[in-house]
């Protein structure tokens, strides 16, 4: 069977968990097995996971799981995977998912694949799954022959569709080791879709000239319901927070739409963003390297183009409502 760690945040199932369950259910259907989702800690809406293909939703609810401890979470996930004889364990490719991946692989003596971005294929008894390597500059097929594989699923791999029914969450009892770390504070910019999960990203670079000009970028992001990002020098000079920095040494993203404003398109920047499905580049220099990686290009002054684009989008949204 296939076991999905359905990550939660503030007592609610995360979007990436629905994606992971949807992916897990597709794999399960291919392999003639079932997909079970596992909730660790509290979650009010766990039953929804059934709609995305989980035939069973399990929950370990224990005070020691109220805050994230990588080791405790990994051990509980691994013990449920062992009890259930899971052959594939799926985690989200989030900070928590990634931090657990290696530990779960060790505990299960399983092969580990970080950032799977395609459905697996079974070949000669082993499992082969695609993933991005070299920060998105290349693809690789990774093969696992151990009988059990643990993977983290890259965001936006499949678009989840609610095709199934709500299921009743089943509580399970298992040993929960005491956490050895203690979360004392969580600070989150609320109301914003985190970059790795965002379907639309509006990103800006040094061409913005000054941090006080970011209103332009934020207005555009707002009409699109997009998350904002930036190039490395912008984050390095403190114009924008570090967590917005995308690229080879920042966050690697693959949204459906990436709009790059005043970014030259250096190889290290492209590395983290060129897996985006559609790329729009706005740059006043028609020779900017980014245009070679773009689907749509606008060679013009961002201070004129971006407000025009925002207005055009507003007109479009009004006409389509």
């Amino acid at each position, binding site marked *: 069977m296939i076991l999905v760690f359905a990550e939660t945040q503030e007592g609610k199932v995360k979007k990436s968990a629905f994606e992971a369950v949807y992916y897990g259910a597709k794999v399960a259907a291919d392999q003639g097995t079932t997909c079970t989702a596992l909730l660790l800690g509290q979650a009010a809406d766990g039953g929804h996971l059934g709609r995305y293909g989980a035939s069973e939703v399990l929950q370990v609810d224990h005070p020691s799981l109220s805050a994230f401890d*990588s080791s405790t979470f990994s051990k509980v996930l691994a013990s449920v995977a062992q009890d259930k004889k899971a052959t594939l364990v799926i985690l989200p490719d989030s*900070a928590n998912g*990634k*931090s657990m991946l*290696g*530990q*779960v*692989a*060790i505990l299960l*003596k*399983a*092969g*580990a694949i*970080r*950032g799977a971005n395609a459905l697996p294929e079974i070949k000669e008894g082993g499992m082969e799954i695609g993933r991005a*390597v*070299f920060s998105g500059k290349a*693809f*690789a*097929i*990774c*093969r696992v022959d151990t009988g059990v*594989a643990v993977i983290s699923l890259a965001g936006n791999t499949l678009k989840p569709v609610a095709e199934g029914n709500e299921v009743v969450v089943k509580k399970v009892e298992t040993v929960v080791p005491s956490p*050895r*770390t*203690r979360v*004392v504070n*969580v*600070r*989150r910019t609320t109301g*914003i879709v*985190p970059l*790795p*999960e965002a379907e639309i990203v509006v990103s800006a670079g040094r061409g913005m000239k000054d941090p006080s000009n970011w209103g332009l970028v934020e207005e555009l992001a707002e009409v*699109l319901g997009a998350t904002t990002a930036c190039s490395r020098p912008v984050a390095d000079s403190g114009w924008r927070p570090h*967590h917005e920095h995308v690229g*080879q*040494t*920042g966050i690697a993203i693959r949204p459906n739409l990436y709009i790059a404003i005043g970014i030259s398109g250096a*190889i290290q920047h492209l*590395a983290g963003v*060129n897996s985006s499905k*559609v790329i729009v*580049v706005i740059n006043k220099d028609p020779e900017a390297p980014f*245009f*070679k990686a*773009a*689907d*749509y*290009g*606008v*060679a*013009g*002054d961002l201070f004129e*183009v971006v407000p025009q*684009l925002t207005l*055009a*989008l507003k*007109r*479009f949204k009004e006409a389509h409502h």
Partner: protein
Amino acid sequence: MKLLVAISQTPETTARIAFKDGGTAFDSTGVNYIMNPYDEWYALVRALELKEEKGGTVTVIHCGPATNDVTLRKALAIGADDAIRVEMEPASAYSVAHEIAAHAADAGYDLILTGKETIDFNGALVGSMVAGLLDLPFISHVSKMVMQGDTVLVTRDIEGGVEEIEVSGPFVLSAAKGLAEQRIPNMRGIMSAKTKPLQVVSPVGTDLPDRHIRFSVPPAKSAVKMIDPSDMDTLVRLLHEEAKVI
């Protein structure tokens, strides 16, 4: 404090990425190698800062062939006290983690630092695996760390924010941007690195539960469609009708 930093070596960020032998192996022809930025800029430098604050030693460990000694010498030039190289061709995160754990098992390190991920295979696995093998607490994506007496206050990057975590006793972390500032080795460092101990050890060896078997580079994008800057309505229409992303 006794500190261990895991150092990896990766192609330079501008290196041409190509594959050979029918797409089964990375083509390193003409490729220059660097110390993985997360290891060099953040993990190593923060370890050195801790040593400067609290006293102790910083050991660097690398799993790789003799050609990679230059990377370890650079780590020594930046300020590490001694280096260990496990003589092997690293074939997966698992094999590397195994060697690091075998070395660290009885060595009494207070803290083991790795980078967030390598910029070539982007595994983000080694730190987590080392923690799993040694049954130590693991904190990933650490962007700040301050000592408060016996406990350590760690700031960890999470999606769209940060988490502050307290931990005491030995643990493993993976280092992210913000943890420290890059240090450029000075002449004295470079000279002294030549005589600092670099020990080469044989691997304990493991099986390989996973391996990369085939590689490819993405097909070149079809030519960009240029849009008249004064006609954003057309861009919006294309994004809706053609690209179907809005």
